[in-house]
């Protein structure tokens, strides 16, 4: 009750505090949604591929930051292994593109359009490629460069027609694009090589036996099951972006704690006399502490409410201004941030509450 009246007494100050809290909470929400968006965009290709096994060049662990080159001839040898239903080659290359005098970079993924294996996770507009002179672009990339279906983009010396737009392919720093395997090999100039093979096995086959057979039959390869390969790629992505996001989140948590601690300390200073009166009148142990904690929680709750109201419009604006910023939000993220802010609001009371101990009932007799 008293905490609420303290808030009412200095509306503007506490409104500004709540806004400060909301900005910190917004930053945390935004960073988590970016992390989730990047995580989704980086590994959705592997996740949605449904390959049972991934065969790469020995020592390669992922497709994001590993170089892998395998002979094209391995396709036939893989297909001959007992239990293998299909082995689909994929070729990843980083390439520069040009569109309307603007240069950009893409993570070109060459695959066999006939089988469709190794293609985009989800087409949201247009269609998949059918021939070597076609390309499917990531939604964020297309938005950033204002490319529409039917437009032509220049990849090195070749001109490719955009036939579709896909999602789940935005890695934040670069985006996937999909072309035919033949075109990818032609662009890079190595027609006898691919990056890896996606192997589908006949249902009911023993994966371990097939993996052993691959190791026995092919030289210089490494074989991953889908789960391990997904984890490898996720770890690779996290090692690049997570430390940065983690540091920014920690900084915003510290700023939030400092804001709350400061404002609570000021309140205690201002209400020093009231608290001394309460102590003299027999306020129970914890009563004044409870006031400070309630004040902190109320401020945090107000800040969180502002943050939640502002979050979705802000994400929409950011994605419009900067399409490569891909976010993914969920109720669980909001719960995690809300819980985090409430924990911070409790932690923020530690220092101010310590100062309450130094208020003596005797003071009001002075």
């Amino acid at each position, binding site marked *: 009750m008293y905490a609420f009246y303290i808030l009412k007494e200095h509306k503007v100050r506490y409104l500004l505090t709540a806004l400060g809290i909301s900005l910190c909470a917004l930053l945390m929400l935004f960073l988590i949604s970016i992390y989730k968006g990047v995580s989704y965009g980086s590994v959705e290709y592997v996740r949605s591929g449904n390959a049972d096994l991934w065969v790469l060049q020995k020592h390669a662990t992922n497709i994001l930051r590993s170089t892998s080159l395998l002979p094209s001839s391995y396709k036939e040898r893989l297909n001959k292994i007992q239990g293998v239903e299909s082995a689909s080659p994929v070729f990843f290359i980083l390439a520069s593109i040009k569109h309307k005098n603007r240069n950009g970079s893409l993570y070109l993924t060459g695959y066999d359009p006939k089988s469709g294996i190794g293609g985009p996770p989800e087409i949201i507009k247009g269609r998949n490629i059918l021939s070597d002179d076609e390309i499917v672009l990531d939604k964020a990339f297309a938005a950033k460069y204002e490319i529409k279906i039917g437009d032509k983009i220049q990849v090195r010396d070749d001109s490719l027609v955009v036939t579709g737009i896909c999602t789940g392919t935005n890695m934040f720093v670069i985006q996937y694009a999909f072309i035919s395997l033949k075109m990818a090999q032609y662009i890079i100039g190595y027609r006898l090589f691919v990056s890896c093979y996606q192997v589908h096995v006949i249902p009911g086959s023993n994966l371990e036996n097939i993996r052993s057979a691959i190791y026995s039959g092919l030289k210089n390869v490494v074989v991953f099951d889908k789960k391990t390969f997904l984890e490898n790629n996720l770890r690779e992505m996290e090692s690049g972006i997570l430390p940065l996001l983690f540091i920014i989140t920690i900084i915003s948590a510290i700023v939030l704690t400092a804001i709350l601690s400061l404002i609570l300390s000021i309140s205690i200073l201002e209400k020093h006399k009231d608290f001394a009166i309460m102590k003299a009148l*027999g306020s*129970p142990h914890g009563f004044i502490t409870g006031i400070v904690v309630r004040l902190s929680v109320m401020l945090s709750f107000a800040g969180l409410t502002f943050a939640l109201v502002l979050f979705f419009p802000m994400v929409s604006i950011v994605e419009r201004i900067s399409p490569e910023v891909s976010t993914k939000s969920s109720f669980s993220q909001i719960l995690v941030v809300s819980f985090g802010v409430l924990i911070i609001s409790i932690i923020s009371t530690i220092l101010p509450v310590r100062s309450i101990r130094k208020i003596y009932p005797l003071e009001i007799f002075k």
Partner: protein
Amino acid sequence: MEANSRYITQLINVSKIYEGGNGTVALKNISFAAVPGEMVLLLGPSGSGKTTFLTLLAGMQGPTSGEVFLFGKQTVEYSKQELQILRAKRLGFIFQSFYLIDSLTVIQNVMMVMKFAGANSDFARKRSLELLEKFEIKHLANSLPSKISQGEKQRVAIMRALINGAELIIADEPTGSLASKQGLEVVDFLKNSAAKENRCIIITSHDERITRYADRVLFISDGELK
């Protein structure tokens, strides 16, 4: 003087010296006792030791030497929690500056001390309204202290001191901020409360006009009772 449990409060050969500075001697070898139902007036000029006397017998600080008994037990033997419960349930304070909580309404100020004593909100509200009516300030229940007169503030402060049924009321210059007529009314009310409800009331003042209401008048000067 020897310790006796019939006294509500008792000081035996109490001295108080404040450390630091020049080591001010606030009280010198004072002995005092008060029983339920009596009103004791402590007269003395500013700086004579009146406030130190009150804070010692309320257990808010300990003596440098001597013994202070409150409700039959030495104040230094009470734990912090026991002293808090005593202040909430058995002691009532009235101050010259009223010391109402400015951000709470009149009724909230009164209810607050009932909650300190463990009352639930419904009972505290009901009892507070009854007392506000008795004090003829029920219409001010939802007013903030800044919106009421000095006399009304003192009535709220008295209500706050009495509402938990305190056995010992400590009033530090209760008439100091009031017009003379209002001041005498307050003292008269406290005198009646002592007699009817068997409370012990200890008042400090430098206003000699209120001596006629007191059962006992003590003079304090330079830390010595005379």
